[in-house]
């Protein structure tokens, strides 16, 4: 099984979620994060004092999937999250050893 962790622009959440549910993905976890990257932040000025805000609001989506779903999932996320402008985000894929559903104790594929 794989863990897909995608950083996206916040206003793209609904489109990404819809794309994923379209693939039958039933579960995901979302976290509000701040991103630093090529996309520049902005400057805020308060009474003459400038504050450079270099971290931008992003959302992190984590989803555990079966290894054979990786490609379709990545395509779905890229398709839904892309605006073509800098700062669209990244997807990181790693392996997971085991998944357990707390309610039932089911494991791995059954737990997804």
């Amino acid at each position, binding site marked *: 099984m794989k863990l897909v962790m995608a950083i996206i622009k916040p206003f793209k959440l609904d489109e990404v979620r819809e794309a994923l549910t379209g693939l039958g993905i039933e579960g995901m976890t979302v976290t509000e994060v701040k991103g630093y990257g090529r996309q520049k932040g902005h400057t*805020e*000025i*308060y*009474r*003459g*004092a400038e504050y*450079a805000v270099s971290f931008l609001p992003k959302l992190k989506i984590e989803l555990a999937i079966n290894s054979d779903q990786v490609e379709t999932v990545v395509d779905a996320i890229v398709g839904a999250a892309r605006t073509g402008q800098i700062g669209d985000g990244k997807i990181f894929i790693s392996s997971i050893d085991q998944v357990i559903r707390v309610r039932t104790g089911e494991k791995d594929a059954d737990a997804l």
Partner: protein
Amino acid sequence: MQNLIKYSLLALALALTGLGMIDPALAQEAAAAAPAPAIDSGDTAWMLTSTALVLLMTIPGLALFYGGMVRKMNVLATVTQSFAICCLVAVLWMFFGYSLAFTTGTPYVGDMGRFLLHGMDMNAPFLMGAEMPAGSVQFTIPESVFMMFQMTFAIITPALITGAFVDRMKFSALLVFTSAWLLIVYAPIAHWVWHPMGVLWGAGVLDFAGGTVVHINAGVAGLVAALILGKRAGYGAGGGHNFAPHNLVLSLIGASLLWVGWFGFNAGSASAANGRAGMAMAVTMIAAATAGLSWMFAEWSLRGKPSALGLISGSVAGLVAITPASGFVDPEGALIIGLVAGVMCYWGATTLKRAGGYDDSLDAFGVHGVGGIVGASLTGVFALKGIGGVSGLIEGNPGQVITQLIGIGYTIAWCALATAGILYMIKFTIGLRVEPEQERDGLDLSLHGETVL
């Protein structure tokens, strides 16, 4: 600090020299002429209301105005300062403050004739300076109401100072500082300006609602405190240390309540519900509005965006500047005062502060000091005989401007000297500043043991 003392002495010298030039006939005796020795229920109603309005300015008005501008980890500590000052000053006012300010005494300070508020006649209209047959002032309200109205002024003034040193002063030091400052700086200066026995009243200085007593006083004390306490850790270090206001909605609520409450501050300073109060309210509104717009447009053209903080800061600057003028000028005077105040205080909170290199964190000096000086000076320019009984420069009396500058000089001199003295005393005894880790962890947690989730 040396510079500070040098300039203070200079100002004092100037003031004392100037004093010889003042014609005492200009003194604000208009009020004294009123022959009405009965309580007027309408005037009393308005003064009770005004007292409530001015209290509203400090809690929660100023508390929020300041609280919204600090970092989130210091918001409770900041709002608590205003609230604690409110409690502390009320008690001190009852014991000593009111007596020092508003009993006859000498030209420099009152006596202790109202210690613990003994001797107020509940049902008679207040006669201020009864011991001075010629110069006493007859009010149409009970002394208790006058005392309360003035108490709310005594509360907001030290609370204004806190803007200069948020995020780093010890709470215990704040309480000691406020107590000493109230009795040594505020009460005497209030006596000078607002009691017929006072030296600046005698000199003909015009200060309808506290341009010198409240705003210059608080602004200068703030500047001195910012210099003596030093900067917040990391301030000006660049590299992303972020001192941005955490929630300007709070500040906007605060500025709004300051504005509404200022109607009591200025129109209440007429001590009656009459035409002068109405005019004071009108010019207060106009100056606040104009200054809000003038700061906003200045920032918009120089920085590309009209910020919420700029707009509300401008309005407060206008309110500050119209304060000494409010019973003396007409709407056009107010318009110009507001215009100038908005631009000058914007300059004070940006260019001047950067040039000075001090960390007047929430611009107590930049807004209240600068705005107070602008207002107190322009009162001498725009005063109209038909409004407050005294003519200013535009009615051909340039002397009033000099008189005003003398009042400003006196106030700055004594305030700067005495404030510095008090702060050094505290610094070398209980200490002024929190520990570095306390500052880093935030004062809410380290001083008060609480947090905002």
